[in-house]
């Protein structure tokens, strides 16, 4: 059957073949041009929306960050770097707290997330169940923080267990460890995603080989697993840091006063209750700069795990 419809070989010299095609090429030139425009044309609406509502606002944010509170709402705005001076001097502690909380929460993520990802990749067959449970952090830190707050209140659902362990729930509340735990719980899936992606590319045979050659478990980790999953660890760490740095609701509900000096919270107060848009914008630029730098690094290390 296949032989019957196979075309007969056409005997034609090279020159005649080229001549036969040439008119088709000139005819197609316009088509090729149109074809080249289709791609950018299809992406154009998305690009326009992004420019209007993402790039222009960020540009305007930079401009506003150079203005002063005193003459913002009047004409003749005076532009200077005074707001940045304020951020780097008077509000420097807030930057430090933000970065500190972000770093510590990301370290927690790594310590807890690495074994989780390893077991998930190597041992667990019921991944659908795991994914379903991991949807809860996806709903956002608001409900997580709210739930954790309620657990620690006297008379909460775990009151009996906490009593048994001689832990006073209210002493955990409004503290740094609790804030860190809330942040880490929210960003946990990001770490598992990145580390898991790296670990699933590591051949289990390599571990077996190391074990056969007499390596102890910690040696297998240090010499085999860690070097091979380093890119995933870095990408996950930086991605978690990028999310943790914009933390807002967790310190409100679970943090004490020192934790509530986080940049996004101060920024919101400055903008929405003191109407000091210049200072708020300067804080926003600093925060965004840290987040972008970190995300850029993480994308570089994850080798396009996000499909970008």
């Amino acid at each position: 059957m296949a032989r019957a419809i196979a075309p007969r070989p056409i005997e034609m010299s090279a020159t005649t073949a080229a001549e036969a095609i040439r008119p088709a090429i000139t005819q197609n030139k316009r088509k090729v041009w149109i074809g080249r425009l289709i791609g950018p044309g299809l992406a154009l609406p998305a690009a326009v929306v992004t420019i209007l509502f993402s790039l222009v606002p960020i540009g305007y944010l930079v401009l506003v960050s150079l203005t002063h509170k005193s003459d913002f709402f009047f004409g003749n705005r005076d532009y200077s770097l005074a707001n940045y001076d304020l951020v780097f001097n008077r509000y420097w502690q807030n930057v430090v707290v933000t970065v500190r909380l972000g770093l510590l929460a990301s370290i927690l993520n790594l310590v807890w997330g690495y074994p989780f990802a390893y077991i998930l990749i190597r041992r667990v067959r019921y991944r659908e169940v795991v994914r379903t449970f991991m949807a809860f952090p996806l709903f956002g830190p608001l409900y997580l923080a709210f739930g954790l707050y309620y657990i620690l209140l006297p008379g909460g659902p775990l009151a009996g267990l906490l009593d048994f362990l001689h832990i006073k729930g209210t002493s955990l509340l409004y503290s740094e460890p609790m804030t860190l735990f809330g942040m880490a719980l929210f960003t946990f899936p990001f770490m598992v995603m990145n580390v898991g992606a790296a670990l699933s590319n590591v051949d289990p045979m390599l571990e077996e080989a190391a074990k056969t050659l007499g390596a102890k478990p910690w040696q297998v980790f240090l010499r085999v697993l860690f070097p091979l999953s380093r890119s995933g660890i870095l990408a996950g760490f930086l991605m978690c840091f990028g999310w943790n740095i914009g933390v807002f609701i967790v310190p409100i509900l679970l943090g004490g006063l020192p934790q509530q000096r986080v940049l996004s919270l101060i920024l919101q107060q400055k903008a929405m209750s003191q109407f000091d848009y210049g200072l708020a914008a300067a804080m926003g630029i600093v925060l965004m700069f840290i987040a972008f730098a970190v995300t850029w690094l993480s994308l570089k290390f994850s080798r396009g795990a996000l499909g970008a």
Partner: protein
Amino acid sequence: MSAIAAPSTRRSGFRFRRRWIGDILAHGYIWFWLALFALPFVATTIHSLELPEGGYGFEAYRFAFGSFKYDLLTSFKVTGLTILINLLLSVPAAYAFVRYPFPGKGALLSILNLSLYTPAAVMGLSLLITYAFLFHIPRSVTGLVAAYVVGSYPLMLIPIIVALRDLPMVYEEAAKTLGANRLQSLIRIELPLLGPGISAGVLLTFVIIFNEFLVTLFIAGPNTQTAALRVYGLTRTGFLPTTAALAAIMQLVSFIVVLSFFKFFGSRYLKGTYLI
């Protein structure tokens, strides 16, 4: 070597038990974390069922469906509009990125993804001042939807790009050979095959936007309060069972959407976006 040559029964029994304990520890660790993920939701639900005079009941939910109903409606309306616009923008764009390579593609993709990495508070602030002092548009549904579209658009784009990359050209070529034009092959061949990728994008957008409160806090007006913003506002004023009921309803709606998505499509297409 000697173990292979003459395995003693005692030693292999010990090994078996050690492996058994290792299994319990490993799976126990996983389930410990899964329990922690679900714990806040469970606690919130229990709290919402508590009655002021003691005991349990659905009293709080009766209050929840008073004025909260309108916030929920606003939330559904805004989320639906965002998903629709996201779809209209991202299907052509994903098609362009995968099927029509053009110069500057990588840069454009990075710019589109930019808003995904902007901290929400910064995004809210930048949109607040832009709406108020540059575009001069009042606080409205339009502004809210525009902000959501920009913020959640990459979440839609990435799964579709991933699905489109996995789709071999063979089907399109076959359609073309059989006489279909570009539009016909897109509608009848590719869109159905891209279904799971597109619905993964829809799911992510829904879950993120439905629960978004931080950008909303900056740019929502008096008539555009969403349900998530209402919950946020209430958590700042006190921890009543009614607040817990609202939070439980929000989580329950989101969770049902996620579960039904997993049931119909599986979680494969969410790979690389949030879940492993």
